[in-house]
């Protein structure tokens, strides 16, 4: 959630680069709505059935609360045609991209004119 707070605070920098942020977890719809209320400039996805996580294969088996499956923290940059342009997964789940690191990756992927 710290990561989402950081992205929320820097949302203007992402809007300037015309990049929308979708944050995906396996939270229920109810919990996801609360998250959306906390971070109104992010798009929050309630992937409770893990359909998206399974399709993209980001499930980290047994790493969640009570040894349940959860998402391995992973960030993808996707262009307007649905093609992946960049991805990042930290070596440890306690590590996250900072907003500056994500913005730098966006600028490398789509250099500003």
């Amino acid at each position, binding site marked *: 959630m710290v990561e989402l707070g950081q992205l929320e605070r820097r949302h203007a920098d992402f809007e300037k680069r015309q990049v929308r*942020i979708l944050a995906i977890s396996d939270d229920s719809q109810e919990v996801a709505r609360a998250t959306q209320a906390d971070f109104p400039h992010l798009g929050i*996805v309630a992937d409770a059935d893990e359909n998206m996580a399974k399709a993209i294969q980001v499930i980290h088996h047994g790493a969640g609360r009570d040894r349940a499956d959860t998402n391995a923290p*992973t960030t993808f940059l996707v262009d307007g045609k649905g093609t992946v342009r960049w*991805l990042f997964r930290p070596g*440890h789940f306690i*590590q996250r991209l900072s907003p500056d690191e994500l913005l730098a990756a966006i600028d490398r992927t*789509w250099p500003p004119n």
Partner: protein
Amino acid sequence: MGETPASINPVPARRRGWPLFLLGVLLCALGPIVYLIQLKMNVLVTPWHAPILATLGVLALIVWIAQRPGWLRIAGAIPFVLFCCFEWFMLLVAFRTPAYTGPAVPEKKLPSFATTLAEGRSLTDKDLANGSRTALVFFRGRW
């Protein structure tokens, strides 16, 4: 010639080694303290400093034991050795994420999927091919 008073040739005091012990304990404790400060500052990087500081602390304790070997000193050092091993285990094993081996790699299209936004609308892979750039951030949820 009388006997030399003992006070003229005193027996040298044995080094107690408390500073070295305290240094070892402090180094072991410093890692978690720095990590807590790091979390408070919302700096989300892997705290390699913690097991490294604990290792230096254990080395100080080993020197402390070597100065005056004894079971009491060994027993005093064991908790810190275990703590150091615990920190290395957490960073080298428990906290590791597997490398990504899925289909969503650079220059490939996202695989098909259908899920739901928080507001209730559906979201599919086609919505991510509508001309907008997107950063997909998978996170572990609201615990």
